[in-house]
């Protein structure tokens, strides 16, 4: 408190330079890593030692976290409503799968780069056309574009294998050293490392001036236009980045399952990732983690009882989240923490 008073006093004296320095300081302070942020990563490593026989499932969770993070970037931060995000996941998955199965290119990391590049290219082209629109039109356009990608894959079943899927994906050992074991330990560490690197990238983007501009566009697009922000290019840029990350998630999915069908492109996947993100909380980076983990663990347990039961549960979760917990589970935890924090003070 005293510090900020002193700062504001100094600011009156030396004007805008001081103000700018304070803004930079504010951004830097917010960007700084907090101790709590280590928790999800420590938990992920802990899970590696606690559940050594569930690593295949763990890998799928990590992949969905990455996918949800990519959606958070475009939906949670930039406010782009997309019902077709699975298109990029699917493009990435097919890129990695076809590289290996049809062209015999089995090196995993370059496979991910290829997946990211193609997803980014499609994201850039479609984004350039679509992101002029908002509301229902944008929802419809993203949905129709994703279905177009799916139908294209279906029409060219000679390449994609259609609903029978792509077989024969073989991935060569990571860095030519780490081979893959039956329990998927290598895949888990590999996916965790990819997630960590890309998460740092997303975090950097979110706290950068570019990220702040995205939030501005989400909150009030007219004002951003008025202050001369290149809104369309900002949106296309973030959409392309989001598509690339979703493509990487898809690539990881194809590599770890060694199998891809047209199901990866379906609306169900777009809806599932949306549910995960909403469940965890949008526009807060770690919401994607909480949402994806809760969703995947619930699915793993409930779908065994009855798939219909689980689907009903997803619908109910979504309805409840929209009506009562619009800020997601993390928002609920925050509210709860505040409630407890207030009590002793009274």
């Amino acid at each position: 408190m005293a510090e900020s008073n002193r700062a504001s006093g100094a600011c009156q004296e030396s004007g805008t330079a001081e103000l700018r320095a304070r803004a930079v300081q504010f951004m830097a302070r917010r960007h700084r890593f907090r101790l709590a942020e280590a928790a999800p990563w420590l938990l992920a490593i802990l899970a590696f030692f606690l559940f050594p026989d569930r690593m295949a499932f763990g890998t799928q969770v990590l992949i969905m976290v990455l996918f949800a993070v990519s959606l958070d970037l475009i939906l949670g931060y930039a406010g782009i409503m997309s019902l077709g995000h699975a298109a990029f996941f699917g493009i990435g998955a097919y890129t990695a799968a076809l590289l290996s199965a049809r062209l015999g290119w089995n090196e995993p990391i370059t496979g991910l780069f290829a997946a990211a590049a193609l997803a980014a290219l499609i994201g850039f082209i479609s984004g350039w056309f679509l992101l002029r629109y908002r509301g229902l039109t944008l929802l419809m356009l993203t949905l129709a574009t994703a279905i177009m990608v799916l139908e294209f894959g279906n029409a060219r079943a000679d390449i994609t294998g259609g609903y029978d899927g792509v077989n024969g994906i073989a991935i060569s050992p990571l860095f030519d050293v780490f081979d893959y074991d039956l329990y998927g330990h290598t895949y888990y560490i590999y996916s965790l490392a990819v997630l960590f690197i890309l998460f740092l990238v997303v975090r950097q983007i979110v706290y950068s001036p570019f990220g702040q501009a995205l939030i501005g566009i989400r909150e009030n697009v007219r004002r951003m236009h008025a202050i001369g922000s290149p809104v369309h290019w900002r949106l296309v840029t973030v959409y392309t980045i989001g598509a690339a990350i979703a493509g990487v998630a898809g690539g990881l999915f194809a590599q770890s399952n060694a199998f891809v069908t047209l199901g990866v492109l379906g609306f169900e996947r777009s809806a599932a990732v949306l549910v995960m993100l909403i469940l965890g909380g949008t526009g807060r980076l770690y919401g994607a983690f909480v949402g994806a983990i809760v969703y995947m663990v619930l699915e793993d347990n409930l779908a065994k009882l009855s798939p219909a039961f689980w689907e009903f549960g997803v619908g109910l979760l979504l309805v409840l989240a929209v009506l009562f917990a619009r800020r997601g589970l993390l928002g609920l935890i925050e509210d709860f923490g505040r409630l407890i924090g207030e009590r002793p003070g009274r």
Partner: protein
Amino acid sequence: MSHFANVVVSILFDGLAYAMILFIISVGLSITMGLMGFINLAHGAFAMAGGYLAVTLTRSWGVPFGPSLVITFLVVGAASVPFERLLYARLYTAGELDQALLTIGLMLMAIAGYTFFYGTQPQSMGVPSYLTGQINLGFREFPTYRVLMIAVGAILIAILWYGFERTGIGAKIRAAVDNRRMAQSIGINVDRLFMLTFAVGGGLAALGGALAVYILGITPSFAIQYLVLFLIVVSVGGLGSIKGTVLAALVLGIFDNAGKYLYPTGGAFFIYAVTVLLLLLRPSGLYGRE
């Protein structure tokens, strides 16, 4: 008649019948979206509910075909009111994303519910034998059921056109679609109007769903499988415009049918490409307001 002309007439005829289903189901969605700007992705679920109700009525309870359609319209129309009052009404002022999410949630619940009670096997409708044959319309024979569908669709278009353009309540709806605030300030109860159109729209969707069962079959994924088509009809036609909905349904129904007939593998791709192109050129639809 030559073979070529025969094929063309068949495609146009089947497309027309298909377009009528699309119109009957979509028109309620168009008007409710136009009135409140509410994105209702659960609309396909109402159509599905109608389809299953009609299946149960005709198959298990032995209700004749005609009355079961009327009952379907009334029951689902009435059942949609509590949904509107309890859930939709809470989100009128919320963002499009919230509305889309809520209704996706409802749709998933409906799909799961119907899967639980009816299974994933396609159900079929009890249709009387005089409707399953062919009827001679002078120059060639046509499937009777499709002739009936086209007739029902044409009658509904006429009724809706009359109700929309020539009655007091239609004038109120048009006023509210044009400018909701202005309509409210001259004393039109837009909330009640919306409830009414929502109920009628839900009932019509159910009627369309019931009519569709014989031709398209019905499984629990009906709600999602055809939803995209309904949304395309609505957004291409323009929100809140009956004329636009008719036109979009005709174009989409005939083209989709022709595409699937002529290019069985790539036909669906073509429809979505046309949709994206149309929306890029006219984001608010053929007859939409800017």
